[in-house]
């Protein structure tokens, strides 16, 4: 039996639903030795800002129970250098390229960035990172406020017809309210979830384990939170959900589909097993055929409650 892994996210057609989490896959070239890159469902870039950013001081990462903290600080070459140096290489690979963007000061930077990318036909979609916890310029995240979320999505929507994905923070009282705000603003999909705020202290030295004191928690530790948020959101919005948070194997990915995800992103799992994305694509295929399901779509939201 042939199974169909293809899914649609807005205007975007993916040959399979396995993508990579922004900031966890470099600019893809880093994984060339471990992954047949052309087989990925889509590639999401590290978040790009208007100006280059050097990022935060070291140490930027530390391990925590079943997870890790990071405070990279959106280190990126800036949109100009990204387009001239990284994008061309990314586009050669084959799968749709989703460019993640963020503002540092003025949220209008999203408009500038989206307008630039809109002119580049080969860019498949834009992910609005409304949820990076690691920039010292931000005391609150856009996606911690439904009005801001709505406003930013709406103004970006005006400058591009490309598929727009809103990436949301789990550090909120009600994820559904924020996801709805993104949907109403014109988002074609939401990415759930970005990292959870976290902190870890070395008690011997009485110092925080990462230089920025607090950071973003990712990995298996956050998976139940992520699955829960996908499930709650799925029942209340119509646009597709890209689920992520601690996916380490096919079983974990299946949880996200059953909770309501249309596609999944692999993040921290890439660090532990650089070939993970390919294993999950094969794993989903064999799960579908074993269970006599013709398409991955049939799994979305299929949890029996």
């Amino acid at each position: 039996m042939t199974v169909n892994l293809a899914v649609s996210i807005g205007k975007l057609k993916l040959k399979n639903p396995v993508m990579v989490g922004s900031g966890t896959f470099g600019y893809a070239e880093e994984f060339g030795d471990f992954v047949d890159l052309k087989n990925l469902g889509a590639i999401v870039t590290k978040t790009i800002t208007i100006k280059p950013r050097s990022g935060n001081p070291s140490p930027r990462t530390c391990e925590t129970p079943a997870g890790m903290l990071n405070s990279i600080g959106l280190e990126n070459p800036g949109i100009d250098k990204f387009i001239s140096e990284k994008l061309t290489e990314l586009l050669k690979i084959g799968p749709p390229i989703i460019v993640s963007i963020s503002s540092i000061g003025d949220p209008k930077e999203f408009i500038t960035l989206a307008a630039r990318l809109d002119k580049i036909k080969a860019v498949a979609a834009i992910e609005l990172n409304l949820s990076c916890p690691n920039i010292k310029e931000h005391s609150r995240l856009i996606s911690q406020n439904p009005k801001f979320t709505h406003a930013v999505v709406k103004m970006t929507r005006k400058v591009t017809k490309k598929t727009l994905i809103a990436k949301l923070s789990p550090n909120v009282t009600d994820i559904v309210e924020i996801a709805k705000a993104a949907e109403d603003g014109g988002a074609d999909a939401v990415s759930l979830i970005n990292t959870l705020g976290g902190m870890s202290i070395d008690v011997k030295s009485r110092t925080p384990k990462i230089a920025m004191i607090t950071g973003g928690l990712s990995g298996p530790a956050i998976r139940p939170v992520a699955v829960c948020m996908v499930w709650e959101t799925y029942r209340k919005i119509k646009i597709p959900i890209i689920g992520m948070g601690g996916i380490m194997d096919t079983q974990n990915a299946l949880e996200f589909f059953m909770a309501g995800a249309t596609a999944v992103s692999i993040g921290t799992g890439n660090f532990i097993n650089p070939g993970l994305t390919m294993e999950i694509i094969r794993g989903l295929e064999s799960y579908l055929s074993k269970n006599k399901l013709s398409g991955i779509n049939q799994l979305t939201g299929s949890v029996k409650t």
Partner: protein
Amino acid sequence: MSAKKAFNTKAKLISNQHISGNNWHALLRVPAIAAKAVPGQFIQVRFSEGIEPLLRRPFSIHGARGADISIMYEVVGTGTRIFSEKKAGETLEVVGPLGNGFDISLSRCKGVEVSILVAGGMGVAPLVFLAQKLSTISSKLETVVLVGGRTREQVLCLNEFRKTGCAVKVSTDDGSSGTRGRVTNLLENALRKIDDPECTMVYACGPKSMLKGVDTVVKKFGIPAQLSLESHMACGIGACLGCVVDTTEGYKRVCKEGPVFNAQELTWGERTE
């Protein structure tokens, strides 16, 4: 850069032996990596199929011969403790060889090349491999190894170094072996005798405080040095930007542009760890 290839593969543990104190030596059968590894490169080892510990741990390649590579490690936490409990015959998942190794071409030198290797504690691990490599190159006529440790127990691999035919000098903080004091004092004495800086290269690996000391000494004498750095790593392959060190050209990834850096490019600034 792209000519280099890394592998995500299984390695069979051939032996895993206690050496002294908390120090261990492991031999891994992993032909793909053994064939490609150069001194200064490292591997990322996964100790558990599960989530404790979650991330891989980086270890310098201590030697490569035939189908095998060797690793020397100190038990300092969960990952290395699990490593020490593994038995011969078990398999480990490894990614490597990773990073840029030492650059051993002294292009401007017309005469006899002098290599000075400075090791602190577990910093001997990649330097033994380097000493072996240097001993096979006819133009590298003189290699001096300076090994430091807190105590006698932390002074490692003296025989391995001697076997490569190089001169070995030892220092310990407490004087329990060799000269009492810092290994950087030995370096200072050695550099005083150097008359051609263009034909001299210092290679160092060890704790950050030692590397900073080496940097100060080599700058005083105007001699170049290559320092192998450590950093907390998540991916080890250049993707997460988690391991950066501050350089004169901004942050660089220890796992990708390093772990070996030219002393001149390191700033040791307050932006550094």
